[in-house]
């Protein structure tokens, strides 16, 4: 719904699409492909899909993009968000939409300087005549001609001698923690982290699937202890400036978070093989995905109601409750003096023109229960705000290396 009869592109239209025909036939153009993106019904999703498409456009090293939409009204949020997201990556765009009078843009932005309105009626309103307000060859020719001019203009200002083009910088500032103690409130005082014990109660009320929850502080020399099945190890990091992959991120070193899960009846939250047992035997310390032996572990032990350790919702509830606790620490970490980190690392998304182009494809869990993966949480390596890759239909997503290293992935497997 939301697509009127006269603007809707039929299957036959897609089957012999004039835009694809014109652009693919042009010998001056190397058409990289066609990205197909839907128009969701939730505003935040609209912005999300626009940003993901823009990441693909950038990763393809496209010199220009034509954005065409066959609906309007609420879908113009999708349309304008996409043009803005691509524009922010400094890739020229031409937009194509039915506008006329009735569909005058309900939202606009400064990147919408070239829009082809394929309205075909005098009145400029949506009609009930199928195919009337569709893209025709001439619209496609106009769009491509304008895009060529915009790309040419950009070419003129570009420096050809550049060996590396830096797209964006991520600055990771780390603060070392030497001691973790319980306190009356969350606080970081030099190298001592205080955790508010009352967070236990609040977090356990996060979801009815949780029976109880405990926070343990495990010092480095105390790995000879029993733990329930491990759900995840995660970092404590927070976004201070910018969005995922750019700006400034603060992270704690010397400390990591471990979630374990069990059901009230004693069933360990796990799928094929569970990792409960003596901590030092169940963890290979010092790997990229595990704490070092010298790290302090903040251990969140979740007891789920019977059966919930075997459901997708139960596992997600455990992650959510744990993330709620970690958020309390992140809020302190945000306020750390950014001029005095223990370490500072700068990462760049870089284009190296003329070199062999390589892509990394990571296949991640997408089955459900303990085979799930969250993408783009609100905070680096967090859970809250993330989208399950299952809900996204396990469709591939393109991430820049900076987005990836800025905690865009939450493992739930």
């Amino acid at each position: 719904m939301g697509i009127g009869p006269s603007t809707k592109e039929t299957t036959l239209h897609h089957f012999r699409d004039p835009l694809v025909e014109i652009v693919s036939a042009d010998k001056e153009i190397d058409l990289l492909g066609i990205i197909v993106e839907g128009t969701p019904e939730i505003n935040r999703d609209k912005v999300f899909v626009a940003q993901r498409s823009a990441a693909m456009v950038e990763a393809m090293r496209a010199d220009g993009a034509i954005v065409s939409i066959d609906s309007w009204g609420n879908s113009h949020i999708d349309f304008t968000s996409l043009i803005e997201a691509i524009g922010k990556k400094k890739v020229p765009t031409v937009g194509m939409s039915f506008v006329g009078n009735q569909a005058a843009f309900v939202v606009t932005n400064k990147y919408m300087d070239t829009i082809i309105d394929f309205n075909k009626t005098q009145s400029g309103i949506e009609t009930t005549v199928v195919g009337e307000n569709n893209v025709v060859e001439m619209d496609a020719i106009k769009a491509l001609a304008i895009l060529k001019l915009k790309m040419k203009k950009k070419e003129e200002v570009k420096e050809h001698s550049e060996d590396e083009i830096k797209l964006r910088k991520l600055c990771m500032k780390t603060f070392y923690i030497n001691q973790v103690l319980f306190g009356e409130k969350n606080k970081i005082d030099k190298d001592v982290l205080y955790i508010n014990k009352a967070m236990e109660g609040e977090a356990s009320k996060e979801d009815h699937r949780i029976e109880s929850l405990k926070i343990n502080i495990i010092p480095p020399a105390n790995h000879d202890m029993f733990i329930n099945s491990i759900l995840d190890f995660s970092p404590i990091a927070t976004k201070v400036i910018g969005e995922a992959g750019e700006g400034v991120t603060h992270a704690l070193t010397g400390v990591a978070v471990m979630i374990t899960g069990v059901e009230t009846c004693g069933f360990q939250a796990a799928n094929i093989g569970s990792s409960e047992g003596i901590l030092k035997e169940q963890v290979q310390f010092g790997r990229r995905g595990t704490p070092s032996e010298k790290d302090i572990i903040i251990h969140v032990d979740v007891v789920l109601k019977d059966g919930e350790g075997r459901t997708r919702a139960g596992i997600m509830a455990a992650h959510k409750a744990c993330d709620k606790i970690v958020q309390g620490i992140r809020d302190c970490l945000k306020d750390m003096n950014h001029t005095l980190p223990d370490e500072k690392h700068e990462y760049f998304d870089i284009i190296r023109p003329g070199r062999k182009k390589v892509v990394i494809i990571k296949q991640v869990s997408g089955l459900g229960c303990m085979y799930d993966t969250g993408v783009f949480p609100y905070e680096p390596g967090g859970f809250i705000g993330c989208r399950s890759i299952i809900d996204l239909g396990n469709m591939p997503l393109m991430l820049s290396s900076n987005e990836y290293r800025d905690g865009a992935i939450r493992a739930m497997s």
Partner: protein
Amino acid sequence: MNLTTARGMKSEIYAPVTPPPVWAPLTKPLKECRVAFLTAGGIHLKTQKPFNLAGDYTFREIPSDTPSSELMCSHGGFDNSDINKDVNAMFPIDRLRELVKEGFIGSLSPVFVGFMGGGGNVDKFREESGPAIAEILKKEKTDIAILTGGCGTCHRSATIVQRAVEAVGIATIIIAALPPIAKQQGAPRIAAAHVPIGSNAGEPNNKEMQTAILKDSLNAMTKMEHFGEMIMLPYEYRHNV
């Protein structure tokens, strides 16, 4: 070959138009306020004439004591299934009556209003329907009007009506599913949760969420001091298809 369809049409030119501010301060505590609810989401009495789905600038008066079972939706711009399950997802009439009973707000305006904002004729809403609706609310001594819109152009129509109501001195807030549209169209106050278009006022049959969205929106009104202020509400709901 003629490349011009209609002379003088300016839609290819970027022109961000946010209308001038309109503002009526909220001067009373909520528990003394008389509240009205308006929706562009196509809600009307089952006995009333349905809206023309291709575009309709008329409106329907809905008595605020109408049982929710006597209401229905005529709107073609979004998935109506949530409203069909529970009209309170768009038009929280039951929740508002509960808020009066609870003493959270003073009373309800005797007349609520439904219209169908999809594809709406901007001029007609601005010049005729908006002022007419505002006049009804003013006559009923309304202090606060809360609005919802469904689809994209619906949010535009809702905001036009909202501005007309604010202009006669009634404080308003729109509970938007598409806040960027409300913002650009010049809504005086905006509240928004992460919900699909069609369930602006909360998940169907989720009394707790619907009540919280209304209460948070009303509370926000008491704190908002400037035109165009927006609050994101911490409620999330999505369809399980």
